[in-house]
């Protein structure tokens, strides 16, 4: 008896979902896929470290509703992105578009990698030169070495 009560109570405390569940009806599977991609890639303007999919804030709910409306109306991806950006700025995209403002953002990682690799190569090259240099002998020293080795071999 106790076990059944425990089981029932446990089942009543369902685990929390990591995403907000909204029941929007879509006309096609493709529309629902587009919606899902968008809510993952749009930032909530209020809770700025969450995307629209994970945010509980009222503005996120509003934006999800607008997104649903636009997808139902058949608007293109570009039109939807323009809608969001013209109201909340480029920051609302998790994948910002490439233009004069964001080009530094996109190129900086590449630049840093190149600088890092370049520095590493320079350091290795210098180190190798330093290691090889003093080890080579002058012509006189080589003759002495040869003489010594021949002496050794004779014994």
């Amino acid at each position, binding site marked *: 008896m106790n076990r059944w009560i425990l089981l029932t109570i446990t089942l009543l405390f369902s685990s929390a979902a990591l995403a907000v569940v909204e029941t929007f009806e879509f006309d096609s599977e493709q529309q629902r896929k587009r919606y899902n991609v968008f809510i993952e890639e749009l930032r909530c*303007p*209020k809770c*700025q470290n969450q995307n629209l999919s994970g945010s509980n*804030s*009222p*503005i996120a709910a*509003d*934006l999800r509703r*607008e997104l649903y409306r636009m997808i139902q109306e058949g608007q293109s991806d570009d039109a939807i992105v323009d809608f969001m*950006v*013209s*109201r*909340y*700025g480029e*920051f609302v995209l998790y994948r910002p578009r490439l233009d004069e403002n964001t080009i530094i953002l996109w190129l900086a990682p590449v630049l840093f990698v190149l600088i890092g690799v370049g520095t590493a190569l320079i350091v290795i090259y210098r180190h190798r030169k330093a290691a090889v240099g003093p080890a080579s002998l002058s012509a006189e020293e080589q003759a002495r070495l040869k003489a010594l080795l021949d002496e050794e071999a004779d014994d």
Partner: protein
Amino acid sequence: MARLKLFLPLLMFVLLAVIFWQVLQDEDYDPSALPSALLDRPVPAFELPALLSERLISERDLTGQVVLLNVWATWCPSCRVEHPFLNRLAQQGVAIVGLNYKDESDAARQWLQNLGNPYRFVIVDADGRLGLDLGVYGAPETYVIDARGVVRFKHVGVVDAALWQQKLQPLLAQLQQEQAGLAGSTP
């Protein structure tokens, strides 16, 4: 000469320290404030009811003079904090228009009756559509709109005396001069 290269990390540290210090010193620094995407663009078209009268308000009602557009709601505690200051500004003659954002009109009317009404008129945005078109993401927010209905400044957060003195008052004065200049030059 090679010795100087040893100081490179120190130099970089000093440079970064100076930059970070500048940012920390700035009292206005708000890392989550989104710059308005509507700067220098006109207020979007809308037609919404007024809170305190029967008429319909459109974006044309926001032209003709420089106004502060204050986004507020009864569910917003910070709005209550900034309200007394808005009352003071209104008494000094500053034109403030209210945007009642996603709120209950009855509660809003009661609120204004209890706390005073600094607004020339209040727009009722019950479903938040105008707010969404303006890029509002929370209350309170205040926009400065010039005489042609163009958004010139947006502040996210409470309007207080410091903000008024440092940013809003000079901006309003400048925009009013602009408006006077334009009015004078039209034949």
